[in-house]
């Protein structure tokens, strides 16, 4: 059966956010970057009224088009960062720096990460390079190693830094996952280099390559845009990283898996909310992604009634920021699922 075009067209929706910001800014609209914050709020509201989509994918006729959308993201995200650098340099106001950084980091984290995540799981060299470049735009390129080679093997295990433990607040999880993820990426890369017979301190080391690339980017920004440019770049990176890790927190909170137990539908939290899935390239169909990471995003299947979040991902992000509210919703749900 062929995938009907209207079924995949909504995946173009997230591209509208950076496109709107770029068009508005270069036409002199002062509200350009604030539009990202309003877009998030609109997505949050629409998620409640958009309902759930439990339909299964139908064929793969539109896969080429869906891949093309993911290739479009790197130039779009790069254009947003460059526009942000220009915006903070021409305006001396600290509020501009604050708003533009949150908006650019929001685009990278909320909409760009699902794309980079999709690309890093592809077998094509070009797509994996695009993922690395996209993650470098918010100084988090090592995520490509840790996520694919670490998290996917260790999900639900205590040693996985990207799996939030039962009762762990977002604020306790954040330092553990950021630091643990970085160290894990180094450990994995050293093991890979040794297995392949390459030198650790050599050009084959991806972690060193990422480090050099990110340092060169920061130096170039400092030379071209000065201190405010560097401040913007680092602040928007922090926002992007925060969003990535909140996403990890929501996806696997309280999940426990025994050593050698196969990864199943029960090891991720899913959301069938239509808008969340459209805007995040089906990342909320997370169980099926863990079942087969090579499956392209339009082909991810609905996970069934188990491990379904009570509201969409956008709303769960808000709850995660308030640990008592989060635990009051999630802990009884986990207890009931494990009974």
């Amino acid at each position: 059966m062929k995938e009907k075009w209207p079924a995949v067209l909504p995946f173009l929706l997230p591209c509208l956010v950076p496109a709107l910001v770029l068009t508005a800014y270069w036409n002199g609209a002062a509200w350009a970057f604030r539009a990202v914050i309003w877009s998030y709020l609109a997505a949050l509201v629409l998620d409640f009224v958009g309902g759930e989509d439990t339909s299964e994918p139908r064929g793969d006729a539109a896969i080429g088009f869906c891949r093309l959308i993911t290739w479009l993201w790197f130039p779009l995200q790069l254009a947003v960062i460059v526009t942000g650098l220009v915006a903070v340099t021409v305006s001396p106001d600290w509020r501009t720096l604050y708003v533009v950084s949150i908006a650019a980091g929001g685009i990278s984290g909320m909409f760009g990460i699902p794309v980079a995540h999709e690309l890093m799981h592809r077998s094509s060299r070009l797509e994996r390079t695009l993922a690395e470049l996209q993650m470098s735009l918010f100084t988090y390129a090592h995520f490509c190693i840790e996520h694919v080679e670490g998290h996917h093997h260790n999900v639900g295990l205590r040693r996985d830094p990207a799996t939030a433990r039962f009762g762990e607040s977002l604020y306790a999880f954040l330092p553990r996952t950021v630091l643990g993820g970085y160290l894990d990426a180094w450990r994995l890369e050293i093991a890979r280099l040794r297995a392949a017979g390459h030198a650790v301190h050599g050009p084959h080391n991806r972690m060193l390559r990422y480090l050099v690339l990110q340092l060169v980017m920061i130096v170039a920004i400092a030379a071209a845009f000065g201190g405010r440019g560097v401040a913007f770049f680092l602040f928007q990176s922090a926002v992007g990283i925060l969003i990535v890790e909140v996403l990890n927190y929501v996806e696997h909170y309280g999940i426990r898996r025994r050593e050698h137990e196969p990864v199943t539908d029960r090891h991720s939290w899913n959301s069938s909310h239509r808008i969340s899935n459209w805007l995040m390239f089906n990342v909320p169909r997370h169980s099926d992604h863990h079942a087969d990471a090579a499956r392209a995003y339009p082909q991810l299947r609905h996970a069934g009634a188990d491990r379904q979040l009570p509201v969409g991902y956008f709303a769960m992000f808000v709850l995660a920021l308030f640990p008592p509210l989060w635990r009051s919703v999630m802990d009884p749900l986990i207890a009931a699922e494990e009974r």
Partner: protein
Amino acid sequence: MSDARDRAETRDLIDTGVELGSVSCGCSLAIGLFILGSCAGVAAKTGTQTAPVLEIIIAVVSALVIATFVYVIARKNAKLKIARAEIEKLNRRAAAELVSQDEADSD
């Protein structure tokens, strides 16, 4: 049989509750945001510059209001999902019992 029908009806009722709760939360949030947006629009039109402190207060209050709305509806939905899971479990148990009873009868 009547038990199974009751459970099916309860499940339908739960699904309707989840849907209605979600829609009403979305509508309330939308109205709130629309009011906020209108105020911001009027302020921009009249050229009134909001004081930074006031802007921070408005942002914090908006965040708290949104979090409360989301919490109320998420908690309600979570409770309904737990109830639905219980019903599914009872259904499965009843079906298994029915099968084992049929097997015993045929023996």
